[in-house]
């Protein structure tokens, strides 16, 4: 099967409007999570939220840069998607063989008050078509909504479609917002932490929600002029078939996903340099991951969760965490798992507690979510 290369990527998060701002903040150990003013009926919650006024001025400045044929009225979610996409798409030759793949769990649901019975405002296909038309994509966009693995699965889907010549290249964009819709739901699940989340820690008390957007270009060609190339070496997405919300007690789906990703890459667990796992900081998710990583002989590999920086960004999580992990590979820096102090899973993990400079070639990225979904992708760096 042909190699599928990862091209330029970008993200917008509470830590910065551009990739380099977010990366620099992460390297400095900053978290985007903060105590928020009440959101609807949700009081004093910790979440990672992008300030609307700052986003608006950044967005307006960016728009002056390009010619837009579409109307200038965008929701916050659309502004995030467009901001993430602009640097990627600006110099891209979009052909009839370029796919647009959109990852989101809830799209524009924050715009709905329940009176709009036909769902026009919340329609994911309509949202996708607006974005596609705005940038002049020539094919119908693909929308993936597969819970919290969507962002990561968007990459594996693009890789598969490129490998079978369904398309030559693809632009992936992911976004989700922190809305009263999701906050009230996760709160009813008693899944929200009353402080900044602490993945894998003994005192973890749940997750924080976050909002962010990320965009990534992926192609059947290496990126011209780049000495370091990244490609998708192997991937898989296997369901737990266990429970629609509770993580598997055996980690079976994640274990199978990791095993198949490594098998496709013809790579042994020893060759993995680090793992960027899902690590939501709920008791059961982190425990499930620890079990799956032991079963796949990866427990001694340096591991982080980036949820302490961004919160759980739902449909964006897999994509933005991949992008930061690719920057780790590029810069040969292992990032600490923010919020971790003491082993909190029944089986130990080699959680990264401080920034480490070291040569890195392979990153295993995983995600897991509602409906028993799991995705694992092995990314490799190649020096040309």
């Amino acid at each position, binding site marked *: 099967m042909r190699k599928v290369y990862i091209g330029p990527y970008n993200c917008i998060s509470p830590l910065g409007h551009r990739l380099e701002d977010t990366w620099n903040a992460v390297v400095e150990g900053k978290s985007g999570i903060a105590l928020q003013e009440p959101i609807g009926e949700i009081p004093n919650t910790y979440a990672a939220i992008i300030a609307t006024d700052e986003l608006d001025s950044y967005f307006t400045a960016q728009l002056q840069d390009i010619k837009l044929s579409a109307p200038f009225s965008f929701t916050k979610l659309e502004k995030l998607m467009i901001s993430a996409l602009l640097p990627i798409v600006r110099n891209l030759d979009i052909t009839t063989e370029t796919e647009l793949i959109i990852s989101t769990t809830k799209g524009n649901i924050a715009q709905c008050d329940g009176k709009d019975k036909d769902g026009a405002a919340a329609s994911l296909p309509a949202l996708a078509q607006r974005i596609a038309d705005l940038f002049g994509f020539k094919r119908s966009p693909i929308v993936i909504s597969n819970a919290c693995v969507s962002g990561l699965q968007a990459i594996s889907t693009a890789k598969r479609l490129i490998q*079978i010549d369904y398309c030559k290249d693809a632009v992936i964009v992911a976004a989700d917002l922190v809305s009263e819709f999701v906050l009230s739901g996760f709160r009813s699940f008693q899944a929200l932490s009353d402080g900044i989340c602490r993945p894998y820690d003994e005192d973890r008390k749940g997750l924080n929600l976050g909002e962010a957007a990320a965009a990534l270009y992926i192609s059947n060609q290496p990126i011209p002029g780049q000495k370091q190339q990244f490609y998708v070496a192997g991937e898989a*997405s296997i369901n737990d078939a266990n429970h629609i919300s509770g993580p598997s007690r055996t980690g079976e*789906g994640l274990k199978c996903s990791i095993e198949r990703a490594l098998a496709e890459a013809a790579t042994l667990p020893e060759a993995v340099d680090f793992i960027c796992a899902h690590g939501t900081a709920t008791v059961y998710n982190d425990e499930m991951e620890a079990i799956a990583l032991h079963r796949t002989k990866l427990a001694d590999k340096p591991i982080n969760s980036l949820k302490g920086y961004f919160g759980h960004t739902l449909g964006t999580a897999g994509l933005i965490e991949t992008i930061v992990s690719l920057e780790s590979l590029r810069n040969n820096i292992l990032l600490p798992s923010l919020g971790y102090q003491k082993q909190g899973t029944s089986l130990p993990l080699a959680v990264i507690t401080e920034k480490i400079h070291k040569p890195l070639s392979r990153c295993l990225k995983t995600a897991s979510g509602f*409906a028993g979904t799991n995705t694992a992708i092995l990314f490799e760096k190649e020096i040309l």
Partner: protein
Amino acid sequence: MERKYHISKHCRIDHHGVLYNGRPLSAEISTEFSIFSKAFYYSLGTTYPKFFKMDNLSKLAWLGAELLLKEELSKNIAIVLSNRSSSYDTDLKHIHTISNTEQYYPSPAIFVYTLPNVCIGEIAIRHHLQTENIFFVSEQFDSQLTVNYCNYLLNSNRAEKVLCGWVEYLEENYKLVLYLVEKTGNLAHDLNVVRQLML
């Protein structure tokens, strides 16, 4: 290596009733989904109390999958589903629980279904399918994408069979078309056949 695949079984559920491999099944026709779905569930003879806890989208998907997979022995069946309205029918129910500040009781049992792919989870749990799965959302069924994605799963030996289709539910408007793709079967697995099934 490119191989040829076939559609071994297919079914359709909508306001006109239930078709299994193109033949109508005697099911209680009702304009109300709650009445129809319950009657049809009992007609299938499977005891599965969790059915009654599902949202409408999952009930619809579960019923279709039950028709096609009840007698299946293979557990190596991937699931590739799509629809237009995502989980909006249940999203509205969740919004309803948080729209009145005096009666503000969001329900975990509703919220968990505010993701379209939970219906895949329900099918996977019922039939013990620890397999590849994905949910796409599009205005119309994307035959091209689904056929190619399905062929990839089979060609790369990621699954022995693939359950594909469309499962749409919004405010009493519903349509399900599911088909099972594998090495043998009466129908060719190609774009024209799939488009015919979806009509």
